[in-house]
């Protein structure tokens, strides 16, 4: 694809006649698919795409499916329509990409960049570096230990949760690098973290072993999909809302499964 098929001349930026609308449609669809993958709500996706379509002088109708994005552009001047469907971009949830792509939509809408430049910026934003994975593992471990404290865990329980989280998150990084299915990853990580956190029961080193076990897997909870699903449901994007909710519920079920096996293996009974 040649991005210069867009309106690449600075002098022509206000002239939408020369835009290659097929390429614009493809760009907008891939842009929207990337936004969906990186955790944007449906309202944000439709607004961002809509403001860029406006500047191209076309109307955009968007179909948001669980794994695909489909956009039809219609040109009111001559009645032509353009259609493109894209699979979801292979990017993990990233609010940095979400923010940069939202800024990009404003740059296009205010004619500060044309569609050719927007395409190049889009590709660059997708490749933006992420936080170092081991730093992330450390941050998540400390966060989960703090979470344990918020539930009333003692310092020893916090230490157990930090170690259990570090081990579980390290396993997650390892399995992600080997492209293992996310559901299997969550089951394995929940199992490992819960198993390690049972040390409080086994050795009696903490007075709050139940809180340690209960908190050890919470770093796996798919919080963003849960919140996005309710946001989509409230804004009447039911299909996306339900699919995000189903995805989050499946992952929560995987956490429960991994944890249950670990707790049963260790013969732990929290409720008397």
């Amino acid at each position, binding site marked *: 694809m040649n991005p210069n098929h867009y309106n690449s001349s600075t002098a022509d930026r206000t002239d939408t006649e020369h835009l290659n609308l097929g390429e614009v449609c493809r760009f907008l669809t891939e842009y929207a698919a990337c936004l969906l993958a990186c955790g944007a709500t449906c309202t944000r996706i439709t607004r961002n795409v809509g403001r860029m379509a406006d500047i191209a002088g076309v109307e955009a109708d968007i179909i948001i499916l669980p794994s695909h994005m489909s956009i039809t552009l219609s040109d009111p001047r001559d009645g032509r329509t353009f259609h493109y469907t894209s699979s979801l971009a292979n990017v993990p949830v990233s*609010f940095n990409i979400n923010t940069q792509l939202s800024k990009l939509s404003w740059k296009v809408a205010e004619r500060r960049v044309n569609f050719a430049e927007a395409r190049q910026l889009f590709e660059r934003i997708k490749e933006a570096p992420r*936080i170092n994975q081991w730093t992330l593992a450390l941050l998540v471990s400390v966060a989960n230990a703090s979470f344990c404290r918020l539930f009333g865990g003692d310092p020893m329980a916090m230490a157990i949760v930090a170690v259990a989280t570090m081990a579980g998150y390290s396993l997650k990084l390892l399995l992600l690098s080997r492209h293992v299915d996310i559901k299997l990853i969550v089951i394995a990580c929940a199992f490992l973290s819960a198993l390690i956190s049972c040390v409080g029961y086994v050795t009696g080193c903490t007075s709050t072993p139940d809180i340690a076990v209960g908190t050890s897997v919470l770093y796996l909870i798919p*919080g963003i999909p849960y919140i996005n699903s309710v946001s989509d449901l*409230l804004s009447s994007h039911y299909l996306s809302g339900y699919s995000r909710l189903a995805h989050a519920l499946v992952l929560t079920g995987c956490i*429960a499964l991994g944890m249950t096996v670990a707790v049963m293996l260790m013969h732990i009974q929290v409720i008397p």
Partner: protein
Amino acid sequence: MNVLLGILQDGLFAAIAGVGFAAISNPPRVAYKYCALLAAIGHIGRYCLMTFAGFSLVFASLAGAFLVGLLAVFIAPRVKCPPEVFSYPALLPMIPGLYAYRTLQAFMLALSANGEEEFGHYFYLIEFNGLTCLFVVLGMVVGQLIPIMMFKRVAYTSTRD
């Protein structure tokens, strides 16, 4: 003095949890401090409402999340980020994880219960913990979404330079 210390501790640990969970969703670097701030304010708000005003966990979570959402909407245009970038991670320390865990435990025990009375006891625990967990999560999510929906124009133009 002890009460104040309790409040500050609550805020501190919520802020640390907020930053750590925010890191998973890879926010812009500038957003981290606001995630910490909002997580602390939200959690302290909930703690104070429950401790001093006698709010139940569900309504205190709703109010705490509303406060987080409101602050996020007004911080967002200053930092040029969508409000979700701060408000979602700031909510995560409020997740009622222990209730979820106890629901799961009670479920396992109910399946292996001997007799109606024992089953009834575990089933009550499933209902109590499960419903609390469900409504706390719903309260949290709806509470922080209300300000975004109330101030749509601000929320959806916050990334404009």
